[in-house]
């Protein structure tokens, strides 16, 4: 993975010192809260319901074991011994003190991490396919470009005071595991007719109160032109994006109001100007991208048989482990290796939370069995990308010891949930208790297996951090006269066939939600054709049978 050089180190250290100065100026009163708020947000520091919250960037979800250990250390020293992995592949601490924040950032800088631009109206942490570099279906590892984007967007002189936040996601694979169509800019590595790899550039996707699927702005862009082209998109957005209404300020609204063709023309014209402006070439210097690429070169793999005889034997003897292997381990591009997905969704647990002890355990396992590398997925799970099949048994037992061997990846209990009203100042209702109740309801492994692929996603407010619009089943928590209630959507999807869920009808109380979900699931099982997934069945059948199932009783 990428390692900081002297320039990167200096940059992050200076940024920490600058934030320390800003914090002191705030505490002394030199800065008012109104002035300080955007400055602290640009370093990921929020004021939430119970305390401050610090959001730490995990660029494109790649993390070393050393970094993971440092996160555990920070959790123990300055927080309450745990952290929360988010849908943007970040980590949040829920209880830091303002006075300690600069020390925390310094501790992060020591391991080449930061919290730069994890909030605020700027380009946020760039996310990527969490299986980048190891997925069997990948065209190219997108992470060198994600790292380039991380550097390029850091304290960008022109684009740190945008109309609204700006999110970029990158994937290099056929299957979209990074939800690129739901980003302000989604980048997908594709081949053109000549077989050359370039970027398909999608613009204007997003969730929030006006969910939209991104539009293709460039079908194929030479990779070297990436930064200049994005500069053009960003300038058009910075100059013409709406600033009169924060709910209409995202780039998706500009694109929608101008129309796809006009917007594309605006970008193309600006891009021509960028290219013509002279000075430095508009191309990313090959030397620089080559420098970054060396950090992401594939490791030297052991030459192994595709199947490990001992593993096969163990799996035959231990059905629980066999099930976990089948559900949580994915096909690796290298023979004899597998991608181990660690579920942070124990039945009835808090989605995405990990204790410092668990973080250290994962770091230790990664050191022993995964070349000291870990990934964070936008589904709030962790990944060990380089596990030899012959080590799978040892990995499984080590995870089991720390309560991290739930065999539910992509199943009904692998629920995405934002922190909701248990932590978040913007939330209108709680998310986590709903996730817990549904998870409990469906905890029987056989039942989960019977149901198959099902993505339930829960947000505690319209901002949609829990990605409810993209859930096969989406749940949105709202407030009605001081009481929590929950709206259900069906048919959303974040993959390469992205779709936005449809609202079923009136909302439910917290106590009613698990039963409503159960009725939806039972309806699916009753009507599905052989091999048909929930999403497939919904797309075939439409909303009617599901609506009938959940509202029938009320009508009686």
């Amino acid at each position: 993975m990428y390692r900081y050089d002297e320039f990167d180190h200096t940059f992050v250290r200076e940024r920490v010192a600058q934030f320390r100065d800003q914090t002191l100026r705030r505490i002394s009163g030199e800065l008012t809260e109104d002035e300080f708020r955007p400055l602290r947000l640009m370093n990921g520091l929020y004021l939430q319901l119970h305390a401050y919250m610090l959001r730490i960037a995990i660029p494109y979800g790649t993390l070393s074991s050393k970094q993971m250990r440092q996160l555990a250390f920070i959790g123990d020293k300055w927080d309450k011994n745990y952290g929360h992995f988010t849908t943007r592949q970040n980590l949040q601490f829920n209880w830091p003190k303002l006075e300690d924040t600069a020390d925390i950032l310094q501790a992060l800088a020591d391991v080449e991490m930061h919290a730069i631009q994890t909030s605020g109206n700027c380009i946020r942490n760039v996310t990527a396919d969490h299986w980048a570099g190891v997925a069997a279906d990948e065209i190219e590892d997108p992470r060198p470009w994600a790292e380039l984007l991380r550097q390029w967007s850091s304290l960008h002189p022109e684009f740190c005071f945008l109309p609204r936040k700006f999110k970029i996601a990158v994937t290099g694979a056929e299957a979209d595991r990074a939800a690129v169509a739901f980003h302000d800019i989604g980048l997908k590595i594709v081949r053109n007719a000549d077989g050359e790899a370039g970027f398909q550039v999608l613009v204007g996707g997003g969730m929030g109160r006006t969910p939209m699927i991104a539009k293709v702005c460039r079908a194929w862009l030479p990779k070297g032109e990436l930064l200049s082209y994005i500069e053009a998109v960003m300038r058009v957005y910075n100059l013409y994006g709406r600033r009169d209404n924060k709910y209409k300020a995202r780039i998706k609204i500009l694109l929608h109001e101008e129309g796809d063709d006009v917007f594309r023309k605006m970008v193309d014209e600006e891009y021509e100007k960028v290219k013509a402006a002279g000075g430095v070439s508009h191309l990313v210097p090959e030397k620089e991208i080559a420098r970054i690429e060396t950090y992401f070169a594939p490791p030297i793999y052991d030459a192994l048989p595709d199947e490990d005889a001992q593993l096969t034997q163990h799996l035959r003897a231990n059905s629980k482990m066999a099930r976990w292997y089948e559900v949580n381990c994915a096909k690796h591009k290298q023979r004899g290796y597998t991608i181990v997905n660690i579920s942070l969704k124990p039945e009835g647990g808090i989605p995405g939370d990990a204790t410092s002890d668990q973080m250290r355990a994962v770091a230790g396992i990664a050191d022993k069995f995964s070349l000291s590398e870990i990934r964070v997925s936008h589904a709030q799970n962790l990944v060990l990308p380089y596990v030899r099949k012959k080590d799978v048994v040892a990995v499984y037992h080590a995870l089991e010891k720390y309560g991290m061997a739930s065999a539910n990846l992509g199943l009904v209990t692998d629920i995405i949930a934002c922190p909701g009203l248990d932590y978040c100042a913007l939330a209108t209702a709680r998310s986590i208790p709903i996730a817990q109740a549904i998870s409990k309801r469906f905890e029987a492994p056989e039942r989960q297996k019977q149901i198959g692929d099902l993505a339930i996603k829960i947000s505690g407010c319209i901002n949609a951090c829990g990605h409810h619009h993209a859930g096969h089943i989406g749940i949105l928590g709202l407030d009605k006269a001081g009481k929590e209630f929950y709206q259900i959507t069906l048919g959303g999807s974040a993959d390469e066939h992205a779709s936005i869920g449809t609202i079923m009808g009136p909302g439910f109380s917290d106590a009613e939600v698990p039963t409503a979900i159960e009725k939806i699931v039972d309806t699916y099982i009753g009507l599905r054709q052989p091999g048909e997934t929930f999403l497939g069945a919904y797309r075939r059948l439409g909303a009617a049978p599901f609506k009938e199932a959940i509202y029938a009783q009320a009508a009686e």
Partner: protein
Amino acid sequence: MAVKKDVRQVLTANLLKDGLVVFMTDGAAWSPWIEDAAIATSKESALELEGRGNIAAKANVVVGPYLIDVIEENGRPRANLIREHLRTLGPTVRTDLGKQAERAAGGSGQGGAFI
């Protein structure tokens, strides 16, 4: 919605230095416990509380003070809205953390830590 017969409001904020939730007391100090909060029973007294809160915000002691509606339950104020009630407890999914945990350990009410 029920007709509001009379005002029952307390003033809340977060402390600047550590972000923790506090309530303004009769003595114009800040307490972590809503039980210690001064209860305004008229529009005038609510405005007065708000004024004192704004002074504390200007003095960089607290951030974003605001009034919240309370009801009295067993003679103690309880926040009306769930959001505000949760601020007096902590995360409901981690009852080992926040005010609810300190309360369980006997930390609440008169005699709690004043700031």
